[in-house]
């Protein structure tokens, strides 16, 4: 059983991955810890001892309240504490997904001291660990970090995955998330979402004197970095799907406008030259346009601006408030909210503004629609009976489901695999909003820890 007899015969470098097809491919992110990272991670396949043709471990995550899969994530073997730190991040990612239940290490019978050897499957079956993760972390002669792991199906006695990664030591958390994604994908059949980031608004100060800053962090709350100083009111940041860039709204210089911010350079610019307030920006799926609302008198209409040609196009023209536009992932349609019928409701139109159709018809009002990256659902905020809920419906308005209801829940954003929704919750009382995530099934609601109050989260896409 040799680690390095690669079944895939190739190693992939992080900055030349654009042609690689699998979800495992790491995406170079330049903002980690403020460093411009090149060749972030190299992945190599590891020998599988047997083909997982009849793997027993499998989760159907479309079934709603699934019982989390009991599994064991062992401390990765290493000469320092980095091994256990990496395996700890992996276990935390898997646990927070709600689909896996990493077993307490105190229950382990076998101590893994050589991850190159097949484990004693019986020792893991007896504690009901249906999957087992083992690994090793070491330093290469050139200073790079080498992280290896294997995922075992303990009941079938088969290796499901074996991979190794090479990267700079400061990227250790990123490697852990990539490994967690690989495990998630193998066991669920869906793409992972752990190697992602969240941009949001960090809030401090009393409710009537709130100071707001743009901030970015890993999806688990680590590596938090502030992107603005807090001098200007900033709202609704959104990730570019194709560049290290966010669009957001700022009241800088007393003129509320939509901005672009380059994450690598900190350079910012106003989007377009509009005569009034622009707000509620979002990128098109190809990253080439920003779609937003322009306020003109008492009305707001939806415009796009092409970021290359700077051409602006008006898509709606009503004596109403049309806002919160969000493209379908194929770019062909746009969902938005409008009060043209009296209260805020959701509408879908073609990308050129034609064929505007109302899709929400339930009690109350509907706002902040966001199209799922899978295309199958639209998430929204619903106000009804004095409560604020987060829900989903199909793009034709059918199949409405409320995921969470309370005093004030607002502003959903999708994980890039379309399985998890993040939003913010403002409790009654003097405190401020906090970020939460919830599974598409409505289960597994989790607080997303931030050092200050948090609002307006936007999940990063999986970069191509």
């Amino acid at each position, binding site marked *: 059983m040799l680690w390095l007899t690669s079944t895939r015969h190739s190693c992939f470098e992080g900055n030349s991955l654009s042609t690689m097809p699998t979800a495992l491919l790491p995406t170079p992110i330049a903002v980690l810890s403020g460093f411009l990272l090149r060749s972030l991670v190299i992945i190599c396949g590891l020998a599988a001892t047997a083909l997982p043709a009849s793997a027993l471990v499998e989760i159907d995550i479309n079934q709603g309240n699934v019982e989390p899969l009991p599994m064991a994530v062992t401390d990765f073997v290493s000469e320092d504490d980095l091994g256990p730190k990496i395996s700890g991040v992996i276990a935390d990612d898997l646990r927070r997904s709600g689909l896996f239940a990493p077993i307490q290490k105190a229950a382990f019978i076998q101590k893994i001291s050589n991850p190159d050897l097949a484990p004693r499957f019986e020792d893991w079956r007896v504690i009901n660990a249906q999957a087992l993760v083992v690994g090793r972390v070491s330093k290469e002669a050139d200073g790079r970090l080498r992280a290896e792991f294997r995922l075992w199906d303990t009941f079938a006695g088969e290796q499901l995955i074996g991979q190794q990664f090479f990267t700079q030591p400061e990227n250790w958390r990123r490697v852990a998330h990539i490994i967690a994604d690989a495990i998630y994908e193998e066991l669920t059949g869906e793409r992972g979402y752990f190697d992602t980031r969240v941009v949001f608004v960090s809030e401090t100060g*009393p*409710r*009537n*004197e*709130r100071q707001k800053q743009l901030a970015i962090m890993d999806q688990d709350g680590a590596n938090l970095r502030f992107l603005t100083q807090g001098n200007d*009111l900033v*709202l*609704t940041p959104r990730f570019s799907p194709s560049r290290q860039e966010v669009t957001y*709204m700022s*009241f800088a210089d*007393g003129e*509320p406008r939509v901005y672009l911010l380059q994450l690598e350079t900190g350079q910012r610019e106003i989007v377009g030259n509009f005569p*009034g*307030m622009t*707000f*509620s920006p979002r990128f098109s799926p190809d990253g080439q346009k920003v779609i937003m*609302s322009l*306020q003109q*008198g*008492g*009305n*707001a209409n939806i415009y796009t601006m092409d970021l290359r040609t700077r051409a602006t196009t008006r898509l709606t023209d009503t004596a109403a*408030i049309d*806002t*919160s536009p969000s493209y379908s992932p194929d770019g062909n349609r746009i969902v938005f*909210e409008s*009060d043209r019928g009296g*209260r*805020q409701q959701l509408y879908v139109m073609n990308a050129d503004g034609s064929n505007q159709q109302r899709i929400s018809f339930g009690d109350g009002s509907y*706002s*902040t629609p966001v199209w799922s990256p899978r295309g199958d659902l639209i998430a929204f*905020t619903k*106000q009804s009976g*004095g409560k604020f809920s987060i829900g989903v419906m199909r793009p034709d308005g059918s199949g409405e489901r409320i995921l969470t209801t309370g*005093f*004030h829940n*607002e*502003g959903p954003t999708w994980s890039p695999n379309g399985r998890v929704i993040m939003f913010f919750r*403002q*409790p*009654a*009382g*003097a*405190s401020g909003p906090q970020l939460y995530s919830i599974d598409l099934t409505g289960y597994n609601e989790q607080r997303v820890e931030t050092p200050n109050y948090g609002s*307006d989260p936007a999940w990063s896409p999986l970069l191509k």
Partner: protein
Amino acid sequence: MNLMMSIARSPAVLALVAVLALAGCSSKRTLPNSPGELGLGGSGAVPGSQQDLTLNVGDRIFFDTDSAAIRPDSATTLDRQAQWLKKYPDKSVTIEGHADERGTREYNLALGARRAAATRSYLISKGISSNRIKTISYGKERPVAVCDDISCWSQNRRAVTVVSGVGS
């Protein structure tokens, strides 16, 4: 949570919070910009100053939930504002539109703008030149009263007229 909510709903605490909020607001509003406004004091407002407008005319009007309609009591205030603006023809103003916190962020930005626009239109209809009146919306981002019932929400659904200096 329950404890916090019960504290927040106690009338005494609410009143205190509201007073603090208004105090914070007014000090912020009257201090900046013009040296002529520094002569603070209840009755001695400098004619034509923000303080003069706030104390002797009324600088703000309020709106019903999810509405930008000018109420009769608001029309009375705006009539006085129009007279004041005619008396001080070198002053221009910015109408700041606001919404309460019981709405979503993007819509409330537009709703605040709609309220500011309705206020501006009313003043124009009373003979004030349009180039003397700018508008801005803060949506639900700048509440003056912070509690979780209608006593605060109704104070936050407002349009505030802010003297911005010499008209363009």
